[in-house]
């Protein structure tokens, strides 16, 4: 198979025009064909040639679905809960889309996607569309693919879309961040579990769920979570909670390879933005107890989701949440495109292996190589911006100046 990026480039160069075949596909999806929806999601996942035009065409038809992310440690009961949520949503007349993301083996790329096993309550009901996705080891691509799959489900007309993923690692966290409302699942008696949540996941929860609430220690876990949520709120009110994103590291990388530097400042700007929005929020995440196995507490959880959706709308935060999501999408797309350009440039220099061999023989060093490869791209960018002084595009200055205060 030819490189995916190269193919995508060729298509994109021709603009975002739909091929006839893809136009038919989009039409059938909008007309309600499950098969077309499934095929569109495959194209999105594969980053198949033309997929961008498809997503682009679907974009006009989106915006009506509530998007809910469900995450938590392995074994917390995510799939079972999502299954029961889907059932409860169907009972009140909503149509449901589920995107279940599982990790792939970093060695073979293979994956066993087992979430479907636990999603049995709604089988036989095509108005619940469940799609399993594997991480496929794409850098930053997973959240993009998930967001695009959500676009497809939204355009198809699903009322509520549930995204389910294991809460470990940055890419999974990025995945649930594509949702309007994020539920973080914890199981009882796991003091350690709550501790591990601190590393990044606590910050993203809009609703916390103590699942397996009939087990020993459930109340205590709920109390711990509530205490933690309140601590989080205090902290959010007093300062920008952006320190954990490690902007310093991002900045160092941006400074090193100038070719990518242009995207990083916006990135940091976006993250600082996050902090502001969280700071202005009046929403205090509730902690809900559920027993997914029996469906107990699921209705209360749905009510919590509804309350959060209402709070988002009333406070005007929905707009900023969605703006943030679009910003992330734009950034990811541009980064992918620039990355593809960089790959072409590397190929033009004889491929990365040849370059590495030169470093190995002591003829050069990685920094010089990177500078050589990126240099022509950089010059093109400068020419395009026309008149901008070289090296540091405008936006670089602002977040840069802000940064010291963020670190405090």
């Amino acid at each position, binding site marked *: *198979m030819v*490189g*995916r*990026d190269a193919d995508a480039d060729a298509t994109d160069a021709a603009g975002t025009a739909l091929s006839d*075949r893809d136009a038919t596909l989009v039409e059938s999806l909008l007309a309600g064909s*499950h*098969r077309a929806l*499934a*095929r569109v*999601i*495959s194209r999105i996942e*594969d980053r*198949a040639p033309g997929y961008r035009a498809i997503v682009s065409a679907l974009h006009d038809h989106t915006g009506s679905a509530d998007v809910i992310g469900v995450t938590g440690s392995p074994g917390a009961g995510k799939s079972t809960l999502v299954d029961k949520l889907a059932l409860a949503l169907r009972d009140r007349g909503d149509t449901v889309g589920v995107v279940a993301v599982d990790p*792939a*083996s970093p060695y*073979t*790329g*293979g*994956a*066993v*996607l*087992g979430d*479907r*096993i*636990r999603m*049995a309550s709604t*089988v*036989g009901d*095509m108005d619940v*569309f*469940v*799609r*399993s996705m*594997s991480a*496929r*080891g*794409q850098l930053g691509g997973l959240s993009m693919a998930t967001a695009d799959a959500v676009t497809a489900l939204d355009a198809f007309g699903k009322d509520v879309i549930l995204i389910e993923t294991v809460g470990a690692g940055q890419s999974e966290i990025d995945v649930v961040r594509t949702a309007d409302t994020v539920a973080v699942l914890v199981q009882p008696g796991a003091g350690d579990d709550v501790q591990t949540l601190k590393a990044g996941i606590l910050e993203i929860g809009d609703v916390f769920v103590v699942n397996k609430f009939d087990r020993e220690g459930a109340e205590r876990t709920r109390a711990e979570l509530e205490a933690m949520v309140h601590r989080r709120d205090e902290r959010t009110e007093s300062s920008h909670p952006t320190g954990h994103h490690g902007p310093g590291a991002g900045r160092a990388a941006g400074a090193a390879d100038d070719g990518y530097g242009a995207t990083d400042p916006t990135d940091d700007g976006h993250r600082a933005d996050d902090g502001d929005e969280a700071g202005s929020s009046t929403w205090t995440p509730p902690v809900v107890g559920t027993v997914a196995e029996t469906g107990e507490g699921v209705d209360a959880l749905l009510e919590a989701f509804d309350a959060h959706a209402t709070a988002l709308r009333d406070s005007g935060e929905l707009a900023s949440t969605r703006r943030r999501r679009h910003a992330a999408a734009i950034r990811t797309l541009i980064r992918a495109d620039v990355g593809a350009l960089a790959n072409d440039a590397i190929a033009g220099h004889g491929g990365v292996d040849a370059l590495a061999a030169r470093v190995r023989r002591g003829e050069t060093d990685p920094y010089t190589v990177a500078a050589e490869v990126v240099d022509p791209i950089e010059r093109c960018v400068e020419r395009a911006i026309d008149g901008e002084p070289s090296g540091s595009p405008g936006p670089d200055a602002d977040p840069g100046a802000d940064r010291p205060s963020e670190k405090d």
Partner: protein
Amino acid sequence: MSVDADERPVRCLVAKVGLDGHDRGAHVIARAFRDAGFEVVYSGLHRAPEEVVQAAVQEDVDVLGISILSGAHNTLVPKVMDGLEAYGALEDTLVIVGGIVPDDDEERLKAAGVAEVFGPGTPMAETVDFVRANLPERA
């Protein structure tokens, strides 16, 4: 990153249809497919034909592996095939069956559109190679 990362992984559904609870074979083949780099959706036990069809359509799989050890393949498999047909998914899904199937029945299943039947003791590599060699072309 290796070149392989750019290749589209084979997607397959490993499904247990009907009432038999023998899922060792399904687990082993799911694992073998995973190790071959496939993305494997596993249905879980005791699925009705229409549930399998639903999963195969929604997951848009290239390969549907049906594991049956109950002897009810003559009833269940054609129902799955009809369901796929109804969704227009039959022609680009490679359907294979694993289990204990008498020769006469094997002919009938193949006539119904099943690509191959794998009996007990089939080496994993043989099944994986068969899938690779017979993957349907995607329109």
